[in-house]
């Protein structure tokens, strides 16, 4: 008997970061009974760490800027497996979504004209790549994520959204029709397990950077949404596509914004050479992130790395002057002084490519509806289930995300999901109630951990998992290595399933949460590994030494990982633009 309390809502959003709170705001404004389940107090979500800005053609820096140019850049950046319809929607709707945030109070930096300040970011161009570098990233100094997340939380307070703060969603509850009808969740403070029933369940659970040993991601980025979806039997898309950010602080992993290079900083090797001039003669340090990260790794592998072990390169900022650094990059000065013991005003920051962003995720349409693919290769909507933000793969980032596009993605599609669900609720949603067995099934993983007796500790298993992913599925990948990595993961699986929870107490038991998070980390890592080994080409962030070229004939498509068979399928890329002809794949150079 699933003898637990039930709480009922019209819509439940799992995750209190940018996309979750944007969706919640939309629904709260519409008057529907909405709750946000978030494992940390909302302003502790990882959106808070975004620094450089939110890219959008608001035509402040350049009054002639066009959203179509932003669309072109994003499609090219995605290495042509971003869905063009979704990218078009994002770039076109973006300005409206940004102005809403500003009206809500987001403290953007300003130009002399009083408009929102925009800075150059990687992969940006004017006139469809022909007009030189654009400056399209709207910024609040180098604390844009902080400013955005707090503004959204404040907007939700104003609209009286119900927050279930420090609650942890354990698993999806599906009804007899395979529709999603809520989640089982734990109130972390009391340990109470509750069935949170909902007509619409939105996963805004963020990324999973913690599958790697070295990541810019917060401790909380453990792929909870991807893990839950996979356990419920739903597929994930393009999960092999992981962005390694060029500038993580060496050793600490903390992020140094691409805005540093946007403001004029550049990378140098041990000889002081500005090496990006060789790899990307036009865009140089503002080439796509995948290109810059690979160039850095090649410099290091070829013996031109910096430091006693030659295992990083330098990001030079001192030539920008103290005044500019204080005004434009104050947070970076703080972070570098704290974590690199380097003062950027006088010395360079040691940096190395570091796992940063999950381009893949739960496949959705532009309305946020989660999809699966049937036997005949047709998209099927999963009733009651939605996703947005990093957890989703809508897909606007394809094989490589452009800097500043993650914040735009989460605002635009958080908003779109909210609007669509509002419409559906108005029209009426009728889903069968979950049975006792349905709820019981969603509790089985939790029950197993609660009854564990003699397994290994979560901390040990997590470290092992992270090392495997770091060693076998990093910036450069190779088939035989990846097969070895997959074998190691197979051996790790039963040990992780058997993780021990020694402390069975109820009050704020973070050990229980970490044991559950470990299951999600593993599920995400395993999907990543199988998809990475299966995609036999190089595209965007997925760079294979044994298949060095892009293979449009076989792989101009999404990969779809099916959890039950642990196999890889393909799904077509959307090339249907509403406003013009689609952009055909071209060789991608910067």
């Amino acid at each position: 008997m699933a003898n637990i309390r039930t709480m009922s809502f019209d819509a439940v959003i799992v995750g209190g970061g940018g996309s979750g709170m944007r969706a919640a705001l939309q629904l709260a404004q519409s008057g529907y009974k909405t709750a946000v389940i978030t494992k940390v107090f909302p302003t502790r979500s990882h959106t808070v760490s975004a620094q450089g800005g939110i890219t959008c053609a608001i035509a402040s820096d350049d009054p002639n800027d066009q959203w179509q140019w932003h669309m072109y850049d994003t499609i090219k950046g995605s290495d042509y497996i971003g869905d063009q319809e979704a990218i078009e929607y994002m770039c076109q709707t973006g300005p409206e979504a940004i102005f809403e945030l500003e009206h809500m109070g987001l403290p953007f930096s300003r130009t002399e004209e009083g408009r929102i300040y925009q800075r150059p970011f990687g992969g940006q161009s004017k006139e469809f790549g022909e007009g030189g570098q654009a400056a399209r990233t709207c910024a609040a100094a180098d604390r844009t994520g902080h400013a955005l997340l707090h503004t959204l939380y404040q907007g939700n307070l104003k609209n009286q959204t119900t927050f279930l703060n420090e609650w942890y969603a354990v698993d999806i509850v599906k009804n007899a029709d395979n529709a999603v009808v809520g989640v089982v969740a734990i109130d972390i403070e009391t340990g109470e397990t509750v069935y949170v029933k909902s007509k619409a369940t939105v996963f805004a659970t963020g990324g999973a950077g913690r599958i790697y040993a070295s990541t810019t991601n917060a401790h909380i980025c453990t792929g909870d949404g991807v893990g839950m979806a996979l356990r419920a039997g739903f597929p994930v898309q393009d999960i092999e596509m992981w962005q390694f950010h060029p500038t993580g602080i060496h050793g600490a992993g903390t992020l140094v914004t691409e805005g540093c290079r946007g403001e004029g900083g550049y990378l140098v090797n041990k000889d002081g050479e500005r090496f990006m001039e060789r790899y990307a003669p036009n865009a140089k340090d503002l080439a796509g992130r995948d290109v810059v990260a690979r160039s850095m790794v090649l410099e290091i592998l070829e013996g031109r790395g910096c430091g006693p072990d030659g295992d990083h390169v330098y990001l030079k900022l001192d030539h920008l002057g103290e005044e500019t650094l204080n005004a434009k990059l104050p947070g970076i000065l703080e972070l570098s002084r704290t974590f690199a013991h380097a003062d950027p005003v006088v010395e360079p920051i040691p940096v190395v490519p570091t796992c940063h962003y999950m381009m893949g995720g739960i496949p959705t349409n532009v309305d946020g509806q989660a999809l699966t693919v049937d036997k005949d290769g047709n998209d099927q909507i999963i009733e009651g289930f939605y996703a947005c933000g990093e957890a989703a793969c809508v897909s606007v980032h394809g094989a490589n995300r452009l800097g500043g596009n993650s914040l735009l993605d989460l605002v635009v599609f958080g908003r779109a999901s909210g609007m669509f669900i509002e419409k559906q609720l108005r029209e009426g949603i009728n889903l069968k109630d979950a049975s006792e067995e349905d709820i019981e099934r969603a509790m089985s993983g939790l029950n197993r951990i609660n009854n564990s007796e003699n397994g290994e500790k979560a901390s040990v298993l997590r470290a092992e998992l992270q090392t495997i992913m770091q060693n076998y599925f990093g910036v450069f990948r190779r088939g035989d290595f990846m097969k070895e990595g997959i074998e190691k993961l197979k051996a790790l699986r039963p040990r992780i399933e058997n993780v021990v929870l020694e402390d069975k107490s109820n009050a704020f038991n973070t050990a229980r949460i970490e044991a559950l998070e470990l299951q999600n980390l593993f599920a995400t890592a395993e999907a990543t590994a199988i998809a990475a080994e299966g995609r036999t080409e190089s595209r965007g962030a997925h760079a294979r030494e044994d298949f060095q070229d892009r293979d449009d004939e076989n792989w101009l498509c999404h990969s779809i990982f099916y959890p039950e068979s642990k196999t890889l399928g393909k799904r077509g890329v959307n090339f249907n633009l509403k406003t013009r002809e689609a952009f055909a794949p071209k060789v991608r150079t910067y």
Partner: protein
Amino acid sequence: MLNVSIYRYNPEVDDEPYMQDYQVDTQGKDVMVLDVLEKLKAEDPSLTFRRSCREGVCGSDGVNISGKNGLACITPLSEAVKGNKLVIRPLPGLPVIRDLVIDMSQFYAQYEKIQPYMINNSPAPAIERLQSPEERAKLDGLYECILCACCSTACPSFWWNPDKFIGPSGLLQAYRFLADSRDTATEERLAKLDDPFSVFRCHGIMNCVQVCPKGLNPTKAIGHIRSMLIRSAT
């Protein structure tokens, strides 16, 4: 070996809180206090604390470190260890849920009281509301607050009246909206603060300034609010 002493309390097991001593091998490295906590939790998973970003921007891991409130993730041992000893306690003044985790409801309630959101009822333009760089500069030193509660839980006035005195963090945010050229609710905001407790319980002790991990100055913001209140009364 570093001697670490940590406040422990599990309401289901312990009748009262106690200090537990650990020894940690830091290999002589000047790591952060959070690294020490993570290392200990790997050994003793029952040790309980909050953490998220580990880079000083999310505000989860405010704790009392060798007597001073701060964020565990950006406080290096070189600043925290005295005589080879590191003492970690929960932030003072609020109820303890377990170990280093405190119940922050009162802190959040004070934040909510100041209406921490933009109020401007004039019709929004089709683009952003314009704001000059000078007007925007007035928000610097205010909007960066991460709600870690280091300041409010270091404030004796907040310890005394956590239900009636807004506290330094909430007042810093109150001023963030009073100072914003786009906000039109100045009078309404001041009226809500105009009582003997909300603002005027601040006695200029300035513990808040001393502990703020973001280098912000709530006392200065409170001074500005006082001036505005006095001006609006005359």
